[in-house]
């Protein structure tokens, strides 16, 4: 659409910056993957070996022998998918409410929602545990999923995004007799695809990687999620670091897949072509 030619210098400059950023950001990731294929005597060598001279699958073999992947993987999938879906839905709904509804006390209520982010998680660890215990939700999927499903972060993010949807669109629909539910489904959601996709990534990563909470809630190993099941292979003094790295790499792979999949929706919306000013 733009007929102007982009100067070569600019293209070169941009891509050099991006490549440099890639290197800086990816170093620990490389080290993690590379170490997972190393024998112990190559791990702490200096200068660090980015590519092992004698790569080995031993760590992965031992990982699959020591860790029973079946149940934890199933748990992680159930928890991650369910909580992501529920969380994104609740955030979108509440975000819409805070963005477009009108009622007294809305701002104060919203500040209360934000306030839930202002206390460090360590403080609420024991109280939440006690509440789950009293509701008999320990060692259940509900106990793993529910506490994290209402997220002020998600609500705030959706609220900000939905605010920029023009009121005129909504008013026009209302004049045609549409109620909030219809507006939500037919106008808000379609126009919010980039935000929904982004929130899905965040929630999925958080749920998939969640570690402390599943450990606390599970009273037997059958309810462990994958990150917990893998973390147990470590010794008290950092032994078996290559084994841990191989586990971590396996855990990351689904996240990368979801990330690429969600990218499709974070493109400029054809959705905006409906606006005629």
């Amino acid at each position, binding site marked *: 659409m*733009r007929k102007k030619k*982009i100067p070569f210098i600019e293209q070169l400059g941009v*891509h050099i910056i*991006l490549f440099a*950023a890639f290197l800086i*950001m*990816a170093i*620990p*990731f490389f080290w993690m993957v590379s*170490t997972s294929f190393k024998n112990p005597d190559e791990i702490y060598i*200096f*200068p*660090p070996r980015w590519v092992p001279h004698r790569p080995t699958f031993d760590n992965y073999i031992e990982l699959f022998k020591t860790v029973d992947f079946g149940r934890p993987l199933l748990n992680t999938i159930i928890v991650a998918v369910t909580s992501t879906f529920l969380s994104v839905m609740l955030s979108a*709904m*509440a975000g819409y*409410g*805070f963005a477009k*509804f009108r*009622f*007294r006390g809305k*701002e104060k209520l919203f*500040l209360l*929602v*934000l*306030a*839930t*982010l*202002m*206390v*460090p998680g*360590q*403080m609420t660890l*024991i*109280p939440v545990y006690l*509440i789950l215990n009293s509701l008999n939700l320990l060692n259940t999927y509900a106990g793993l999923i*529910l506490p994290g*499903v*209402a997220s002020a972060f998600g609500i*705030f*993010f959706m609220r*900000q*995004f939905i*605010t*920029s949807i023009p009121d005129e669109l909504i008013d026009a629909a209302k004049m045609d007799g549409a*109620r*909030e*539910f219809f507006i*939500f489904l037919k106008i808000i959601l379609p126009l919010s695809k*980039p*935000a929904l*996709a*982004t929130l899905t990534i*965040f929630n999925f990563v958080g749920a998939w990687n969640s570690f402390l909470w599943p450990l606390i809630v599970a009273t037997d190993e059958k309810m462990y999620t994958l990150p917990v099941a893998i973390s147990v292979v470590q010794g008290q003094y950092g032994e078996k670091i290559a084994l841990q*790295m191989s586990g*971590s790499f396996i855990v990351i792979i689904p996240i*990368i897949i979801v990330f690429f999949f969600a*990218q499709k929706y*974070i493109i*400029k919306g054809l959705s*905006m072509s409906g606006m005629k000013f």
Partner: protein
Amino acid sequence: MKTRLSAILIFLGPALFIMTVFIIIPIALSLLISVTDFNVYAIFDWRNAKFIGFQNFINLFSDEIFWKALFNTFYALVVAMPLTIIFSLLFALLLNRGATYLKSFFRLSLYLPSITNTVAIAVVWAWLLNPRYGLLNWFLGLFGIAGQNWLSDPKWAMPSIIALVVWKAIGPNMLLFLAGLQNIPDFLYEAAELDGANRWKQFLHITVPSLRPQLLFVSVMLVIGYLQLFEEPYMLTKGGPLNSTMSIVLYLYRQGFYQFNFGYASAVAVVLFGIILALTAIQMRLRKYQE
């Protein structure tokens, strides 16, 4: 015209209900114990905790490590926040350009720090910053700049932590800005270009105003997040050397989980809560006047 009650209940109800049960009530409980002497003896049997009024807060006032932690945390906030916003926005713009190749790949690479195993991150950063054989000092040496003891010098430990924090934060915040950028219709830029506006002007007069909601979001979330700095000093320095990287939440954690002074830790949390609430309310109010 006020919205229907039923709509309010349906759309806000579920989230608020779950939030109340699993977040608001626990927060209230955890803040309430700040007026007790809840300690190791009360964990198994909470009746061992006694009401002591504001004694914890009085002790907090004269606690030099608490003030140091407060200072350190604000130091981190003031430096890390602008850096994070600038870099995240910059990369969001670069990765929104039509002419950039391999956008998805670069977006993923910026996001990698968020999802990489924290042990790997700690090991690699400790190596990067190692005074003798770390990459950073080697790189500086190429330009004749003397390398520092990044993590063991009280002067440089906090800046090192800040660098790590910003490094981790760029990816997610870039994604947040990117989502906002998608919302800006192309024709606004085209119209401006026809009017002769160069790209910098377009940025200032179209992009930035359109991103206001996201900018508010990011700045509020960064204040909330950075004041609760914990993970990075915990991973790399445990608050040292000489408490130069002790953050408020790290201090709170040590008081609560190492020394079992839960009542005292709760007082710290109350103070922190007050500070963050005030700063957030101010930001929200400021924006309201701007709009």
